[in-house]
């Protein structure tokens, strides 16, 4: 695709996006739903951007080219950054590396992958990097920090494809007129805190599986890529070096989409390739599928269930809501103590049961549980009691419902 075509597609997309935003803002009369509708629209648009590689990728390829590579690999990631960083732009959203054509890439995948130095030809996926793993880790963490300071967990609330999936499940539940369940505050807090344990575990596992390449010694047998020539060992060295991906619920969704539109051969998903290690296919493990099913069921009952334990959200929250980052984060919520009546609506409508907006007396609200969906601001019935700010400027504030009716 030529640069002119790419620019044309981008301009058309932005025009459609802008027209959609204007149409939603104009057409939605119910002001308690306006931002929600806008967010839903942005979420869908974000999915198109994230998976652009799928949409314009080559279809109907023979078996030997399950992923293809061109023109998808010449998109923003590989084409723009070149060989120094060919895996796509790091974003703090669950957007699986493989199916999306490297338009953007899940930062958790990159962190795991670069801890495990698979750019070593003998163990890797034959991707050549002209930079060291340490340097690429710095790039990824810089990307996460930049994105987190800029927009915080706005990524979770507005842009993450898996967030959209959970919101769709919520809509399904509402169709059946079932009320959502809520965790007790103690359980909810424990779930949110578990995010940090989860990501720590998987990063440690990445180091363990990459131990031979990192330290020159195997921490567990079978991780020496130079000697792993049987099926089990090749499975460990080539497939478990990104352990979180083996349990990530987003991965099967991505692959289902890819198979659904004909960009991936279903046999790659369905056939057993790594023998006895719980693997059901080249891309999807039985753990992936089990967790997706579990998360789906739980998300039908509890709003945004996965966001409470998401390691990606943990990273974004870490770099936007904890000191010293929270002092310079540009996107934040603000509460006016004088105007708040402690009605509790903000607490009840929060999909992740974040409570700081309610509990805090006033001032900036920076809570790692908050996904910046703005539902609290949208629903708050007191004018200017709650505000969403970007770079110190108010971009949205709560409205006085009584005045609206007058």
């Amino acid at each position, binding site marked *: 695709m030529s640069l002119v075509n790419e620019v044309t597609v981008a301009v058309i997309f932005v025009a459609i996006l802008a027209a959609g935003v204007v149409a939603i803002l104009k057409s939605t009369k119910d002001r308690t739903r306006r931002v929600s509708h806008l967010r839903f629209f942005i979420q869908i648009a974000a999915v198109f951007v994230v998976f652009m590689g799928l949409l314009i990728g080559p279809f109907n390829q023979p078996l030997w080219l399950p992923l293809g590579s061109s023109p998808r690999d010449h998109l923003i990631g590989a084409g723009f950054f070149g060989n*120094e960083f060919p895996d796509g732009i790091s974003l703090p959203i669950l957007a699986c590396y493989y199916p999306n054509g490297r338009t953007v890439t899940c930062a958790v995948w990159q962190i795991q992958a670069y801890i495990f130095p698979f750019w070593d*030809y003998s163990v890797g996926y034959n991707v050549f990097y002209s930079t060291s793993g340490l340097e690429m880790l710095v790039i990824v963490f*810089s990307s996460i920090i930049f994105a987190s300071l800029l927009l915080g967990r706005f990524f979770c609330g507005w842009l993450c494809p898996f967030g959209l999936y959970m919101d769709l499940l919520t809509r399904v539940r509402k169709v059946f007129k079932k009320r959502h369940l809520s965790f007790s505050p103690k359980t909810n807090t424990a779930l949110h805190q578990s995010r940090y344990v989860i990501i720590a575990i998987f990063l440690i596992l990445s180091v363990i599986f990459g131990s031979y390449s990192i330290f020159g010694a195997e921490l567990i047998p079978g991780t020496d890529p130079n000697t792993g020539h049987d099926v089990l060992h090749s499975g460990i060295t080539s497939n478990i070096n990104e352990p979180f991906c083996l349990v990530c619920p987003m991965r099967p969704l991505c692959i289902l989409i890819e198979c659904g539109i004909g960009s991936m051969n279903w046999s790659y998903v369905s056939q057993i390739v790594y023998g006895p290690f719980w693997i059901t296919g080249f891309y999807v493990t039985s753990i992936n599928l089990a967790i997706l099913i579990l998360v789906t069921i739980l998300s039908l009952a509890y709003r945004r269930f996965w966001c409470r334990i998401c390691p990606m959200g943990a990273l974004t929250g870490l770099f936007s809501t904890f000191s010293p980052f929270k002092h310079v984060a540009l996107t934040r919520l603000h509460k006016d103590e004088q105007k708040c009546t402690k009605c509790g609506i903000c607490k009840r409508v929060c999909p992740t049961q974040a409570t700081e907006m309610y509990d805090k007396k006033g001032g900036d609200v920076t809570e790692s549980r908050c996904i910046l969906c703005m539902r609290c601001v949208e629903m708050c019935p007191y004018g200017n009691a709650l505000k969403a700010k970007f770079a110190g400027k108010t971009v949205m504030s709560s409205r006085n419902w009584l005045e609206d009716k007058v």
Partner: protein
Amino acid sequence: MAVGLLSVSSGSQAQTAASFTPDTPFNIPDCNGTIYFAFNGSCAQARLENSTWVFSDLQLAYSTPVASLRVGTKNCNITITSFSVFLASQNAGAVHYNVTGPGIQTFNFGLSPAFGLNPKIRDLMVFLDSDPLTQNNDSGGQSAPEGSGWTLSEDGTITVTGAAAEAFIFYSDHSSQLIDSDLPFYQSHPVLMASLVLVAGVVLVGVAVKVKSTRPGGKP
């Protein structure tokens, strides 16, 4: 309708701007070998040169164009089922073919002169009679080490001698991708520098906003 290339009996002959079908044989009579492609395709030129077929601007259905490909076969017939360049910027690609009869196959992808000389700038894997993607056969999808069924010559020609039924060759030439160590750090690591600059920029803006909002008279 595809126009089949004529079989060339000997010497150096050429066909220009021709298309071919799976039934089109590219014979190498001197070596008792024939090359077929599993899909329709076309090329700007195909010529038999020193018992090797040289294809220019080869384009197979479902595959990306290949600038140059030299294929030879001796005492066997091969059918090339796939041939694509993965990343043009990396000169990476792969070819898969089926073999009939014991014999020798040679491939030259027209890569940089350093490809055959410097192991550090190349990735080269040859899978002999094993499927590298499914790994559901006895050999476990492992590539064969150089010298065990295949060799690489200094001119970049891969000679496969150990394929009984099929082979898959993956290559990647990184000679043009290496960072010039003579360049200043900021020039040789532009993505890293850009990332750090972005973080520094957003931190500066954040600090400015914070200072502005906390000073007397500023908006909280």
